[in-house]
């Protein structure tokens, strides 16, 4: 007899799953437990080059309260049913809203969407997992709180909880998001509710202002992990500065990345440039202004000659350094002088401000990101190859010019082998650079999809062989990346997992942990 479910959790009989679903419905009501193919369709689509059937959920649970989640984990423990948590479900290019493994039940926390507190004076927020950046942005505007958000490029439809828990980044001075996290509430697999840091103390009013509490710092083990379900999350917000000056510095040759990084590092470490700077390759910015098909046709990666034509036609550098100054006008004037002197020395840099570039669509969306305003313009990247295929390749580099050049050259070489383009950028760091490459491919083309998978696998293999670790990865490659960090770390992760979740019900497979 055919199953009434579109998938089943690994090792769980249909009879037991029936019983679990029945109990979930007792907790959540009929309409908040989804099991039909039509209801689950939005949880299946991913941008990864693997069959969607590999990541098809068996059900989705729409919880709204901590008490419901406590009851859900009890049912999961009883029937050994694994759950996969999502908040806004917009981890595009990293797995979207689909679970890591076929048959896992998605615990969808999007309806836990309350902004619990925003403190204007202390500049912090406490929110539930389903709150989007757009929702928080509107709340801050409506209440005239004078605070800025830092968010990733999918801004409006993503949210601070999911992004920070996956250790995502933004573009303001608060761009390394987990650095600015302060206090979590976590439902553990045994149903207990932990508040981290100062939140563990009854009547404490310092949960969102002091990170460390007493004893071992725990927040980190609930990021990129499956040790608990985060139901409340505190983080710091940036007071709106009196003045803001975005700018872009363009360079014409790929080797110039060495000069860029060597020039920018001391400015970042000293705080002259305070924000998470982006050094974007021409092919990362081109989709905002140009169509790939206007410059190249047929298979293979785009030739350098075509890239130079795009640069010329659309006023792009091969590298485009987006940064900003924040503060009083006097502070900005002083720091602007330091920046222009530093970048002016070699004569290679072209420096543009809002005066020259305000109407440029690439500059305009980058400026919005650097002041925490909503924009989804970076999604133009998806039009470059079309077909909805995207994976973020995200190795970490030292903020040292020679290293960034090596990483760029190696990435480009491997992508070209598979006929794919280098759509890359370096972002964030003072001492590090997140090297972020969108591996774009046409998912409707089986050959290109196969090539993209093999390419990504080779990128991970070759980078880890050289000691370059990946900071974040999509759900199809989590085990492979976990392996690159060696057996001792994996064993510690597993030991913690066994202690906190002995039945393995919370997101098995996340970061390769089971």
């Amino acid at each position, binding site marked *: 007899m055919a199953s009434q479910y579109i998938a089943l959790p690994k090792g769980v009989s249909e009879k037991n799953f029936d019983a679990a679903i029945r109990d979930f419905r007792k907790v959540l009501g009929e309409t908040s437990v989804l099991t039909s193919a039509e209801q689950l369709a*939005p949880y299946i689509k991913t941008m990864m080059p693997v069959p969607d059937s590999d990541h098809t959920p068996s059900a989705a649970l729409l919880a709204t*309260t901590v*008490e419901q989640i406590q009851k859900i984990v009890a049912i999961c423990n*009883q029937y050994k049913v694994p759950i996969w948590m999502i908040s806004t479900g917009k981890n595009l290019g990293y797995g979207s809203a689909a679970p890591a493994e076929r048959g896992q039940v998605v615990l969808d926390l999007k309806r836990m969407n309350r902004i619990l507190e925003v403190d204007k004076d202390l500049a912090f927020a406490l929110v539930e997992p389903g709150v989007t950046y757009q929702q928080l942005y509107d709340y801050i505007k409506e209440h005239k709180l004078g605070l800025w958000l830092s968010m990733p490029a999918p801004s409006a439809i993503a949210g601070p909880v999911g992004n920070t828990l996956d250790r995502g980044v933004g573009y303001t001075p608060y761009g390394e998001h987990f650095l600015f996290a302060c206090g979590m509430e976590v439902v553990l697999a045994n*149903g207990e509710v932990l508040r981290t840091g100062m939140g563990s103390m009854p009547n404490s009013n310092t949960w969102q202002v002091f990170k460390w509490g007493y004893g071992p710092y725990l927040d980190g083990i609930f990021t990129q992990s499956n040790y608990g379900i985060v139901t409340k999350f505190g983080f710091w917000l940036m007071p709106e500065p009196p003045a803001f000056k975005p700018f872009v510095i363009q360079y014409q040759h790929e080797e110039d990345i060495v000069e860029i990084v060597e020039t920018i590092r001391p400015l970042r470490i000293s705080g002259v440039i305070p924000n998470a700077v982006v050094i974007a390759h021409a092919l990362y910015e081109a989709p905002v202004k140009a169509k790939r098909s206007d410059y190249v046709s047929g298979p293979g990666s785009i030739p350098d000659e075509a890239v130079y034509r795009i640069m010329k036609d659309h006023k792009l550098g091969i590298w485009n350094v987006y940064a900003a100054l924040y503060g009083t006008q006097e502070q900005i004037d002083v720091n602007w002088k330091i920046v222009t002197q530093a970048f002016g020395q070699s004569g290679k840099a072209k420096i543009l401000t809002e005066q020259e570039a305000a109407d440029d669509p690439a500059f305009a969306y980058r400026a919005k990101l650097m002041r925490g305003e909503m924009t989804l313009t970076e*999604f*133009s990247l998806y039009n470059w190859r079309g077909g*909805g295929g995207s994976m973020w390749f995200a190795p970490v580099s030292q903020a040292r010019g020679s290293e960034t050049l090596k990483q760029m050259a190696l990435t480009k070489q491997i992508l070209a082998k598979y006929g794919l383009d280098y759509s890359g950028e370096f972002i964030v760091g003072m001492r590090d650079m997140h090297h972020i490459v969108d591996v774009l491919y046409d998912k409707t083309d089986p050959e290109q999809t196969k090539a993209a998978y093999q390419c990504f696998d080779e990128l991970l293999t070759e980078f880890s062989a050289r000691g370059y670790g990946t900071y974040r990865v999509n759900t199809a490659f989590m085990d492979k990346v976990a392996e690159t960090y060696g057996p001792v770390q994996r064993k510690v992760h597993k030991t913690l997992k066994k202690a906190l979740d002995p039945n393995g019900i919370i997101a098995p497979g996340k970061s390769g942990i089971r």
Partner: protein
Amino acid sequence: MKKAKLVNCIFDCLVAIIFTISNAWSTQNEKNNPGFAWKDGAEIYAKICAYCHEAHVGPQIRNRELPAAYIRTIVRNGNRAMPAFRPSEIDDESLTKLADFISNKKAQH
């Protein structure tokens, strides 16, 4: 093996006890906050769709008399690079309003 089973059994018992104990923290200041709900189709369009469909990222979809049923299907399933949107993000009632807003010329300016 036996030890592992015993540990799991103890853990399961603990789970049963703990979730029946009410958590004093989770009820404070939260019952009066109903959370977010969409006002109308225009708001959803402005806060989600317009960022791509009015910004040269996705195609224009207004004033094309696209059937409401087609819009609902694309929103729920996604289409190539366009992500799918779940009922937890845009509930069925709000999706109907959104589809009407996009497909009905009179609703637009």
